[in-house]
């Protein structure tokens, strides 16, 4: 990509920590997937987690999201002052944690609009009676949310033209965007993105980068973002901070430029000879 990090960044305020992970331990059988991991994410920043395959990045994300089977063996996860370590995923969604998946998990049989609307369902209050007869309050509420989705979400992710298509039949790159749109529709405070660039072509990567920055910077969203990504160009361009995992342990934590030049990072992740990889732009 031809742009430079400095051109992409806007001045923004990075606040106090919104998510704190303390001494997280997680083992699967004999494999220590997370080994005493601690870090914090500050309000408003884009934090990238990088590391070789199998380093525990996605495990960390799933633990923050609370998927079944991903409860920490020990350690704590605190979100906005609340200890959410043992909360089920749906409760975490209600306090503003939203995510996309490495392997797309959309409602394949539904239309794009329905997918995104489902992301919005938590913000609706209609009971079973109003929703059922679909009259009065329910119609108004639905119209309000749909308008919001059309104006804000579709606009941000540029998927308006697909709104009535069946999701499962759309191209991969578009599905990735729809997943981001659905996650945004929940109005999250913390957005977890698991390899949003995987499988995208260069142009799609540029678009997706733009969408992620919008989600982070625009007033409408102002999401704090945790990004797990292999595309070093993107990571170095848009991250405020980067942490590096290797074999379930955190080996570096700091601004991109600093992390990039740490010898242990280069050794663990990039291989000693492949210095070109890290500077891919």
């Amino acid at each position, binding site marked *: 990509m031809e742009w430079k990090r400095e051109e992409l960044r806007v001045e923004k305020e990075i606040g106090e920590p919104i998510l704190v992970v303390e001494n997280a331990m997680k083992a699967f059988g004999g494999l220590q997937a997370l080994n005493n991991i601690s870090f914090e994410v500050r309000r408003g920043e884009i934090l990238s987690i990088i590391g070789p395959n199998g380093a525990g990045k996605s495990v960390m994300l799933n633990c923050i999201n609370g998927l079944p089977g991903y409860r920490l063996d020990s350690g704590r996860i605190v979100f906005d002052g609340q200890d959410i370590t043992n909360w*089920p995923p*749906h409760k975490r969604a209600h306090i503003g944690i939203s995510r996309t998946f490495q392997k797309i*998990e959309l409602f*394949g049989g539904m239309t794009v609009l329905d997918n995104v609307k489902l992301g919005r369902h938590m913000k609706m209050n*209609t009971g079973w009676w109003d929703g*059922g007869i679909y009259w009065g309050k329910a119609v108004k509420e639905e119209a309000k949310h749909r308008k919001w989705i059309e104006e804000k979400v579709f606009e941000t992710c540029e998927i308006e033209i697909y709104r009535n298509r069946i999701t499962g039949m759309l191209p991969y790159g578009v599905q990735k965007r729809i997943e981001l749109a659905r996650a945004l529709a*929940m109005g999250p405070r913390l957005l977890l993105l698991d390899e949003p660039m995987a499988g995208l072509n260069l142009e799609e990567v540029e678009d997706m980068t733009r969408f992620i920055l919008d989600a982070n910077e625009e007033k409408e969203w102002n999401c704090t973002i945790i990004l797990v990504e292999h595309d070093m160009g993107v990571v170095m361009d848009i991250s405020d901070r980067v942490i590096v995992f290797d074999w379930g342990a955190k080996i570096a934590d700091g601004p991109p430029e600093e992390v990039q030049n740490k010898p242990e990072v280069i050794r663990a992740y990039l291989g000693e000879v492949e210095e070109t990889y890290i500077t891919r732009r």
Partner: protein
Amino acid sequence: MVHFTEIVITGLLVGGIYAAIALGWAIIFKTSGVINLATGELTMIGGYTCFALYSFGLPFIAALLGMLVIAILVGILTERLWLRPMIGEPVLSVIMVTVGISFAYKAIVALIWGADTRVFSPPVFPLEPLMLGPIHISQVFLYSFLVAGIMMAVLIYFFQRTRTGLAMQATADDEMAARSMGIPASSVYRWTWIIAFMSCGIAGALLGNINGLNISISYLGLLVLPAVVIGGMNSIPGAVAGGLIIGVLENLGDAYISPFFPGGVKTTFPFLVMLIIMLWKPYGFWGWIKIERM
């Protein structure tokens, strides 16, 4: 011709009851991917509890409503005790659990009510048939059809138009995504079992009025399987339509084929048709055809 019309109409009316059982199959399969082999036992429990309440002297409608309340409780209990711990386990293991549930429930019912056939007495519905022109329609069948129809309309309404129903559909499509979007999967499964129990229970109570009740009513669950398969395992309206089709097929087979091949045609004929339809439409008439993008 009159004979034929009578056969088809009676078939449709009985099919209404099958449809209620088929709904029980489909709703569990749709949300959790599990083929619930205890479906017949849900029917049986519904039949016997309604019978018990009726025998206490309650009016039939009250017995039916009481049965629904018990069905809700047993549904919650079943899900909580045996299905909840199996969330996330392989589907095949869960199906084996439902086999266990089926034997256990059969045994419990036999323990309480014994193995003899029980009949609703006095009969709930008038015995003399209604005459529509030259066509005889048995009143039991007609009212059963209406009751089953109302029940299914309510359940389908619930499934399609409420937020709990929406949550069930989302979970059916992609459980992982549904969970991370604020949908509690466990409560979805609880609702699924409640609905299956209610729907099958109603069918059991109505069947009890037609043939009397005994343990073998639980085999009816399997006899309805072709309905679900023909309709498409994950389509609720498909299951209902399939139930009606099976009702008609059974009656036609009984009337026109049995005279040539005596014995059992009534129950095997729908399976034969199911086989042929499977060859032609492997997803059933209304099932999801998923074309994967590779």
